[in-house]
């Protein structure tokens, strides 16, 4: 017996009001003088006594009204247990079907135990079946039909997702918001340690949830896996491409594992890896000889363990010819082409081939074959070339212009159109140099702006930006990098040189990624990745590509997107391990190798103490730790509110009180 809102009991102080009015205040009546009591007989007193009794009854009724009003608000309850509440309970069966459940007969064991639990409960109670992967998935609604529930359990298939018990707790908390009846949750899982969230508090469950754990395995199982593969997504020169694979062993003894690189189903190289006990080793394949186009590659080991699904890691490689870049420079300038070319080769993995041409030799060149054109501190270009270059940009081409010291005498910048209003020679100033001030990190060329902090600029042209986008400024506000869209193409202007005279940028480590990002930005190619983790999301289209349809083919060769989804979906979840083939909205084709999260390969289990703590966190009353005891748990105690009865008695008392009070008032009415 208790009260759900005990603070309303303070309202019981109001009981003193009728007591005061009936008993205390009554005695303060002033005596009334009369000539004689001759005609007031003894019978008068009996009448008064009767009335006093009636008053007491009225007092009792009024006290009862107030008392039950207070009780109704205080909401008393009694704890009940038994069959009466069993029908209201929801039996929630959660089966872990994460990637690690592929080991041995884990999933089959879990399904069998879940089925036996369902059979032991019989019909009559509501139950729901869910699976735990990367998220909680309901396979059925709360139903009483055991056939539906058994079929749902039997239909559970292993997934390539990573189990997250924090996600389980979050899903159950959401469920408890809508289901107010007690929920008895049975979790059938291998209780993988890697599934625990970073914070234990994320496992907390609402009070109406009783958690019963059914660990399928008790001990850790040794397992080798290809933990990761570092391979380029695009290959332009197979001889320069390398593949690095990390072979890891979890709870394993030291062993030698055979590692094979498979390209399009054919093993092209094999190495032996000496994997230390419970450790990892890196294996490198020096070449990646793949044909032109997309190749489905994998790194495979012969683990001979009980989880073969993680013995292979998939990735795809696209081989293409390198694109040409036209680098136009002054005849005497040899530094800039060296720095630019070295940076481009080092960063872009031979994706581009630089063609260096002095400015005075530029004639009627076919610019359309170049990915982009670089004008490195050229004082002037032939007018014909400038016209070709302008048409090239307007037709969708891109130009990078570096304005060094040679440009100072020529106020006009080719193609860009802006004028050089002044020059800043910082080497003559007191500090001898300046640095980058404001920069726009959203611009593709400036994604590593933090690394520009140590770059010293000794000289910079002051360019009127006009309608160009200023991507970066020096600390004195001088525009350093400007991006201008002309026609369908764009021109990127660096108000300093690409040599080490006007700045020390080429000597700085941030120069290589800047050249890499700028080259990919100007050429319209982006670095692609050939692999992804299961349950990651793939962006299908950008904001400009809304109306264009995309196509996704999953590892089973099916198209998981409907026609409507194919024309509107922004992203797609890669749920299965295997090769996905995609045709994106920009028309490019892509192949992605999807692998399960390798944290699932660590088959270490959660310690019993942690499991006990988790169960205690859910409901202290249920201490079942084994499937046998779990199936025989007691009915949970349920508070049974009594406010409804209090309100009913209050209503009756109020009616009777009204009748008595009206009768009392009626006798005082004088005859006319």
């Amino acid at each position, binding site marked *: 017996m208790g009260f759900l809102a005990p603070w309303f009991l303070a309202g019981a102080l109001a009981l003193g009001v009728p007591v005061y009015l009936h008993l205390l205040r009554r005695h303060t009546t002033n*005596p*009334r*003088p009369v*000539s004689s*009591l001759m*005609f007031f007989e003894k*019978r008068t007193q009996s*009448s008064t006594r009767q009335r006093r009794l009636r008053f007491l009854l009225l007092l009792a009724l009024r006290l009862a009204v107030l008392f039950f009003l207070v009780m109704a608000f205080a909401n008393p309850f009694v704890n009940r247990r038994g069959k009466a509440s069993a029908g209201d309970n929801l039996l929630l069966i959660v089966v872990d079907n994460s990637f690690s459940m592929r080991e041995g007969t884990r999933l089959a064991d879990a399904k069998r135990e879940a089925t036996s639990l369902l059979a032991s409960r019989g019909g009559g109670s509501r139950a729901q079946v869910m699976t735990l992967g990367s998220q909680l998935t309901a396979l059925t609604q709360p139903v009483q039909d055991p056939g539906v529930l058994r079929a749902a359990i039997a239909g559970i298939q292993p997934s390539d997702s990573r189990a997250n018990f924090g996600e389980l707790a979050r899903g159950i908390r959401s469920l408890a918001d809508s289901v107010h009846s007690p929920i008895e949750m049975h979790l059938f899982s291998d209780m993988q340690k890697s599934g625990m969230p970073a914070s234990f508090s994320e496992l907390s469950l609402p009070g109406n949830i009783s958690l019963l754990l059914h660990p399928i395995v008790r001990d850790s199982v040794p397992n080798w896996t290809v933990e990761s593969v570092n391979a380029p997504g695009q290959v332009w020169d197979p001889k320069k491409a390398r593949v690095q694979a990390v072979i890891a062993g979890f709870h394993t003894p030291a062993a030698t594992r055979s590692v094979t690189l498979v390209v399009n189903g054919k093993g092209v190289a094999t190495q032996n890896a000496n994997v230390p006990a419970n450790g990892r080793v890196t294996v490198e394949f020096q070449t990646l000889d793949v044909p032109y186009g997309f190749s489905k590659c994998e790194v495979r080991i012969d683990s001979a363990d009980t989880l073969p699904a993680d013995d292979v890691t998939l990735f795809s490689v696209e081989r293409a010819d390198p694109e040409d870049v036209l680098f136009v420079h002054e005849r005497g300038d040899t530094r800039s082409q060296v720095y630019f070319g070295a940076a481009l080769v080092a960063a872009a993995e031979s994706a581009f081939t630089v063609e260096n041409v002095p400015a005075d030799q530029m004639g009627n060149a076919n610019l359309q074959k170049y990915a982009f054109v670089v004008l490195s501190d050229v004082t002037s270009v032939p007018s014909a070339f400038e016209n070709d270059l302008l048409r090239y940009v307007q037709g969708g081409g891109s130009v990078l212009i570096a304005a060094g010291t040679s440009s100072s005498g020529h106020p006009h910048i080719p193609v860009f159109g802006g004028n050089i209003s002044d020059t800043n020679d910082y080497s003559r100033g007191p500090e001898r140099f300046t640095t980058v001030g404001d920069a726009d990190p959203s611009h593709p060329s400036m994604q590593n702006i933090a690394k520009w902090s140590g770059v010293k600029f000794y000289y910079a042209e002051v360019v009127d930006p006009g309608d160009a986008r200023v991507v970066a400024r020096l600390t004195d506000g001088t525009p350093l990098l400007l991006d201008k869209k002309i026609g369908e193409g764009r021109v990127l202007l660096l108000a300093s040189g690409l040599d080490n005279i006007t700045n020390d940028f080429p000597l700085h480590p941030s120069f290589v990624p800047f050249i890499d990002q700028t080259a990919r930005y100007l050429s319209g190619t982006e670095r692609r990745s050939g692999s992804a983790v299961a349950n990651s999301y793939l962006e299908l289209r950008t904001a400009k590509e809304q109306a264009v349809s995309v196509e996704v083919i999953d590892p089973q060769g099916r198209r998981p997107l409907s026609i409507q989804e194919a024309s509107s979906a922004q992203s797609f979840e890669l749920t299965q391990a295997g090769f996905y083939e995609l045709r994106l909205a920009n028309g490019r084709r892509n192949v992605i190798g999807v692998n399960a999260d390798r944290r699932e390969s660590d088959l270490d289990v959660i310690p019993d103490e942690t499991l006990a703590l988790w169960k205690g966190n859910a409901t202290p009353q249920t201490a079942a730790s084994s499937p046998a005891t779990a199936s025989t748990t007691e009915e949970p105690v349920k508070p049974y509110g009594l406010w409804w009865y209090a309100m009913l008695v209050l209503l009756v008392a109020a009616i009777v009180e009204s009748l008595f009070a009206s009768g009392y008032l009626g006798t005082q009415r004088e005859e006319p």
Partner: protein
Amino acid sequence: MQRFLDPRVLAGISGLDLVAKTVVDGFVAGLHRSPDFGFSQEFAEYRAYTPGDDLRHVDWNVYARTERAYLKRYRGETNSVLTLLLDASNSMNYTSHSVKKMDYARYTAASLFYLAIQDQRDAAGLIVFDDEVRNFIRPSTRQGQFHRLLSGLELAEPRARTDFAKPLRHFQEFLRRRGLVLILSDFYESPETIVRTVEPLRFHGNEVILFHILDPQEIRPNLGQSAILVDLETDERLEVTPEYAHDEYRKKMDAHIEALRDKTRAAGMDYYQLVTDRPLDGALREYLTIRQGKN
């Protein structure tokens, strides 16, 4: 003039003599001329002369015209003795409005004295009693009697309780001459006791009138809620409910009044009820009716 007989108006007049004059003058002015009352030298009738009659009473004018001797009859010396018995017990102190029963009795007594002494030259006396005779003013027609009586009324402050039996013998001692006896009281005694006590006065040849003075709340009490009632004479307390006061009490009071009226009249006495919220002319009219009967 009728409004001057309102007890509430009279209560605002200081001095019983002025009250009495106001009442009587107002009352008389409200009457039409009547041959039934007047001064003692007033002509009454003619009677044939018989030998032995006093010749001074022969109307010689009539004899000259008719040669028959007639005697003129006058209303004789009909001076009566008015004795007023005033109950000055504590119960007379009760009131439910602005005029106490005692004040109402004083106004009535003063008016009767005024009418008797000033208008009719009757002798008037006063006995004030409760459970003893507290004051006695012998009936007289002497100069200043009226003011002595008023002074006696002024001094008659209610106290103690009523007991008719005890002062009875004193009444008989004092009332040696036959006359008119008026008793002003609230008569909180059984009718049998009252009549048994007062009846000897009637046997003595007196005209006895009982003026029953009651407050309207004594006849029709109205209690809004249960109340503790205190007896003004005995200080006894009793809690009474509105239902009882509304039903039982009224029945008992009505029965009491009815019994007192019946037994009083059965004993050859007159009974008149005076309610303190009504004008005072009722008592005067009753008095004059009795006086007419005596003549």
